[in-house]
Structures are given as C-alpha cells and as structure tokens.
C-alpha cells in the first residue's frame, strides 16, 4: 500500500510533477512530502487508534448487526431469523413504549439542562474569576464527577417515602403530595428525569460559561449603547454567539437520554411496570436475562439509528450557520 500511495501523487494542482524531475531540491525531502501528501505518515500516527477503534467499536458494531438477524441465546445454535427481530421491535407494544420513554427523557436530560444552563451561565458569567467563581463552577460541575451509580443511589434515598424530599414537603404542610416518587406510576419517569437533569446541568453550564467568555465584550457594549436591557442583550448577543456550544450540549445530552442506563438501573430498575424502562436497560435484560441476543441486537441497532436521527439535524443546524 505504501508504494502505491508513494508513487501516485494526489494531483491537487493540475499536472503533478514526476518524482525524478529535477525541480525538487532534494529527492529525500520530496519523498517525504509525497508521503505526507498521500497521508502515509499520518496513517502511521493514526494506526494505533484505528486498530483500537476497529477492534473495540467497528467489530462489535458489525457483530451486533450480524446477531440481529439471528435467533440466538448466546451459547447454543443460532437460527437465521431474517428481519423478524426488527419486526418485533417495531410491533411489540412494550418495546414501543420503552422507546417512547427514552424520547420523554430527552425533555429532562436535554432541554431542561440546556435551558437552565443558559440561565445559570448568564447569571454566573460575571463571576467567572476569583475564589467565588471557582466555587460556583466546582459545585455546578460536581454531579459530572460523581459516578452515576452513586448519584442514582443518593437520589433514590432522597426520593424515597421517608426521604429528604418528602420530609421537606411534610415540614411545609404539603404532606398530601408526599409519595414514593420513584415507585409511583405517574411520577417515576419524571423523577428519573430530574436525576438526569441534575447530572447534566453542570456539564451544560460549564460549556456555556466557557462559550460566553469567548464573546467579544465590545458586542455587549454596543448593545448597551443601543439601549438594550439584560434580556435583550441575552437574545441579541449571547444566544446567537453560543450556537455551537448549545449544539454540543444538545448532542451530548440527547445521546445521554437515549442511551441512559445507569441512573435508571439503580433508581428504579425500569419499574414500576415498564414505566421507566429505557432501551439501554431493555437491551441488557433481553441479552443477559432473557437470552434473546438477536432481539437485543436488533433493538440496539434501532437505538443507534435513533440517536443518529436525533443528533444529525442538530449537528447540521449548528454547524451550517457558522460557516
């Protein structure tokens, strides 16, 4: 492959010079340039990463797609199933409800943290420096540092029937509202959503604060001279300048919502009923507890496509506007 790449110039500028023509100062350097132009050295540098990517990402991906066409329990003989598993994913009412749950979680995992993050970021923007700024950033970012499993456990204590949330409610005379938030059919999914919002709010805020610090102060000055208040300033200057950061926030959080597993597994195990079961949890259950590797793989492929479907438009929108 090296010789093929080396002997054929990429032909970027019309007629490419032949290697042995004396227009080049040194043959060795020319060779190196040709290598570089063809991406040879680049490939060498990338090789370890490509290998890891191929073994740990591409191979499992290919295998998952392959498994999705079989009925297989993970050990025994696999039987060809064609598209049956995909048909099940799109017709089983339980599986459709589970995918629906993930879409609901997008509101909590994605829209809430980004909206709140924007608000918090514009409030703390002015205090990014000094000890206080560091404290604020640390506190906000803490949920990102805490393992999701620990967060799930802590929150299931807070939200339990005798947990802090209900204690506070009873203390202020709202005992009638108190309930086992994670065990109640109506509140379980929103309660899980709140945990997710808490985890992801810090990430969004930090990203947005960083983005705001890059905005040219002159823009704000100009807006103020034109008589803009803080609200107008936010919509006219801050928001448009943060397009890319918001795009990143949305992408990361939507993926977190659709592929959520840890928080749900720890706080509710998908219950009560199927109220909080999400695709990630169901894939794991199907593959390991019910031993339907084929159906689990099909659901995984569908989930992957769903993520791509949700994230691609956001990437398009936020990138296209900048260029």
């Amino acid at each position, binding site marked *: *492959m090296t010789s093929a790449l080396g002997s054929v110039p990429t032909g970027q500028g019309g007629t490419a010079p032949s290697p042995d023509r004396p227009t080049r100062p040194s043959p060795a350097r020319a060779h190196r340039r040709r290598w570089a132009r063809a991406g040879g050295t680049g490939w060498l540098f990338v090789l370890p990463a490509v290998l890891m990517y191929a073994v740990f990402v591409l191979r499992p991906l290919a295998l998952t797609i392959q498994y999705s066409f079989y009925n297989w*329990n993970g050990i025994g*003989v696999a039987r060809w199933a064609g598209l049956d598993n995909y048909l099940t994913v799109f017709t089983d009412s339980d599986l459709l409800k589970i995918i629906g749950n993930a879409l609901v979680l997008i509101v909590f995992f994605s829209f809430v943290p980004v909206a709140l993050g924007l608000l918090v970021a514009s409030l703390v923007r002015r205090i990014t420096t000094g000890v206080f700024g560091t404290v604020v950033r640390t506190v906000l970012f803490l949920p990102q540092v805490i393992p999701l499993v620990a967060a799930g456990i802590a929150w299931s204590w807070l939200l339990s029937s005798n947990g802090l949330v209900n204690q506070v409610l009873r203390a202020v005379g709202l005992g009638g509202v108190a*309930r086992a938030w994670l065990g109640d059919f109506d509140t379980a999914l929103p309660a899980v959503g709140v945990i997710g919002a808490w985890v992801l709010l810090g990430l969004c805020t930090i990203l947005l604060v960083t983005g705001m610090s890059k905005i040219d102060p002159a823009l704000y000055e100009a807006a103020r001279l034109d008589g803009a208040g803080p609200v107008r300033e936010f919509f006219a200057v801050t928001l448009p300048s943060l397009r890319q950061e918001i795009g990143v926030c949305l992408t990361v959080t939507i993926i977190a919502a659709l592929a959520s597993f840890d928080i749900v597994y720890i706080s509710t195990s998908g219950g009560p009923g199927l109220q909080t079961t999400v695709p990630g949890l169901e894939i794991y259950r199907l593959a390991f507890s019910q031993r339907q*590797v084929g159906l689990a793989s099909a659901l995984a492929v569908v989930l992957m496509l769903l993520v791509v479907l949700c994230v691609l438009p956001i990437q398009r929108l936020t990138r296209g506007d900048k260029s």
Partner: protein
Amino acid sequence: MATPLARFSRRTALLAPVLALGLAATACSAPGADDAPRTGGDATVSTELGSDPITLEMYAETGFPLAKALADEFTKQHPNVKFNIREDQFTVIVENAPRVMASDNSPDIIRLPTMVDLVKDDLLKNLDPYFTAYGWDKFPASQLVQLRVGDGGTTRGTGSLWGMGLGYSVTGVFYNKKLAEQVGMTQPPATIAEFEELLAKAKSAGVQPIMQFNKNTAGINFPHQALQNQFGDPAQVADWIFQKPGATFDTPAALKATQTIQKWAQAGYFPKDANALDYASMVGEFQKNNGLFMFNGDWESANLDKTMPGNVGFFLFPTESAGGKHVAMSAPNTFGIGAKAKNPDAAAYFLNWAHTNATAREIAVKIGGSSPGGPSDLPVPAAAPGTVLAETLKASQQLGEENGAVDFTANATGGIFAAAITPEMQKLIAGQQTPEGYVKAVQAEYAKELSR
C-alpha cells in the same frame, strides 16, 4: 490522469479495515455453537477423593455464607482439597452462568439458576452416575425432583439429575411477636380467613399488616403463590413450573389468588410504597417493628434471630379450610457441576459430604438456616429452642411429611420473573392491571418463551 487511481487507492485505504471487518463478521457462519454431541450420563465416575492436592473452583452467591462455611470445613477435614471461591449477586450469576460455564475457566461447583437452558446448551454435568454410585436413592425422592430435567432440556421434574442442594429452603410467613400481641393474635392462623381477619385487625390498629418488597423483583409474588397453592391443586402449579405440555397459568386458582392480592392491595395491607421497596429495605423495615407479617424464606432465620431475638415467629401459610394440607414454596439451594469441570469427582464428593457428614449438616442448619436434606434416616441437627430457626426447621419437616413442597413460579422459565411477573405485579398493586389481565399476561410471556 493519475487522479482517479489515487482517489481509488485512498478510498481503499480508508475502506480496507471496515471492509475486512465486515467480511470477517459475515464470512463466519451463524454465531454460537455447532450441534455438539451431548455428553451422556454413562461415563465412569469415582467416589474416591484421593490424596493429590487439588483446588476446586466454586462460583457461589453473595450473602449466602453457607457455601463458604462448608468449603472451609471440608478443607479442614480433607487438607488436600482447597477451594477457590468467587462470589456474585444471584441475579449476576443468573446472567453470567451460561458464559462462565462455556468458558475454559468453567467452575467445578456453581450456584445454579434455572437449569433447563443450561442442560439444553450442554453446560452441566449429568449427575446420574453419582446418584447410583453414592446411593442417593436413599434420599426422599421429592427432595431432588426439582433438580431433574428431561433429556435435551425439555420438562423439569423428571429425567436425569443435574444438581444438588446445599440446604433445602422453605418459605412461609414470619411474624413480629410484639405486634401480634398488640393486635390480639394468640396463635398462628389456621385458615386463610383467619389470616385475613388478622390483616384487618392490624390495619385498624394502625399496624402495617404485611411488610413486602416489590421493587426490582416482585416480592408480592410470595403471597400470590401462597394463595394460588391453596386455591387449586398444587400439582397444577408444579406442572406449569416444570413446563409440562398443556400446563397453563390461566387457571381459576391463579385468578382467585390475583383477585385476593388486588383486594389486599386496595385495603392497604401492603406498604403504600411497595413498588419502591427492595428486598433489603423490606427486611430492614420488618426489623424496625414496621410490619406484622413478612412473606420470606428460612434463609433469613439466623439473621432475624440475631437482630430481633425472641421477637419473631414463623408459620407455614395457612390452608383454605381448617385441617387442609399445607403447601409452600420450597427449593434446594441448587449447586451443579460444570460439564467442563476439571475435578468433577471431587465436586460430587463434596456435594455428597455436605448431605451426609454430621458436621456439615450442623453447619447447614446453623449458618444456612435450612434443612440439610440428605437420607431420611439421618437426624436433622437441632437449633436452639425459642429461636425462629427452630420454627422454620420444624416447618420444613412438617412440609416434608405432608409432601407439600412446590418450586417458585418465578423459576418457571429463565425470563418469566423479570419479563412478566415483576412488571405486571407492580401494575396490579398500583391499580394499573386487572387480575384477569395479570393472569393472561404471565401466561402469554410463558408461551412466548417456550415457543423459542
């Protein structure tokens, strides 16, 4: 002119790994095993332990100290045998067992989930030769019936022997003696009607009638099956669990049991937050004197004697009419020998020893809190009088005499508990599912799994 070629080679360079992978993935045929010849039960086995130093690999359950205690005692008696014990939560073992047993490091002795799939996949050692060699026919047949699976992993309850129990557990109702006194319960209820009276009394006295978990896995399936066992022929329940052809969950008995559970839920006999309560929280609440009754098994006896000494009693779930036959869920703590085990003879020697050695039987009672099983002519070691352990042991013997042991409906298939019973039971007690719907949903999942 060179341009298309260059582009081509570049593209090839990019695509090569992806293509290679795609080819590698699809070139190999279907995943999984080929149809391998089954290992028959006719191999010759030895009942000699020998004196060569060996290490038995054991895969046991976290929170089940009996296995390790027995292993330690065995090493004390037979210093040439050491144990290497790996522990996991039971649910993790359920998920891992097939892959662990198919691997090259397959354990010799493993705590088993439902065995049918493992037999089907040829991962377990057939214990029939040991059954003959050790004379296990002297054990009561009912003790080992749950450990039998028909050829090729068809029905359970008949066919070859695939596992043994390290302790044989019994389930029933634990009660808090102080609270019992408070609601005027002088002796365990003799009928379901009496039991329901006590529930009502407790409710009106402001005592939580039943402390039961229903998060993660449906703990309310305990009272449900206790009722179902009484409302119909328990043999019908057993047939369904053993996957006998034609067996169904959609029976009048199951429906009546489900209706009763719904009634109890509506009356507030279960904790209001049962769907948010896991097993550990249930035991914790019961120990805090919150709850008159708790449906559970004798594996908690030793623990309850420690945390609330003298304050706990136990009875087998009462019969529908006075003087009827007691039926209870009772199952061996199943351990099997891997098909790829390196020391199967020593593993079988250990299992036989655990049933017959006097010290081992005492450990089973003291630490495991359950009957050691074994031949019916061996005495069951006594527990200290006045303990709940003594009561559960007595109940276990009584159940044996009445021949009333059935397996758990949760063990009917590998996925029935997680896929149907748990979510549907959570719905039922929250008023999101009807009794008719519950029975039909469980049967539908069962039929779906068996059709695979």
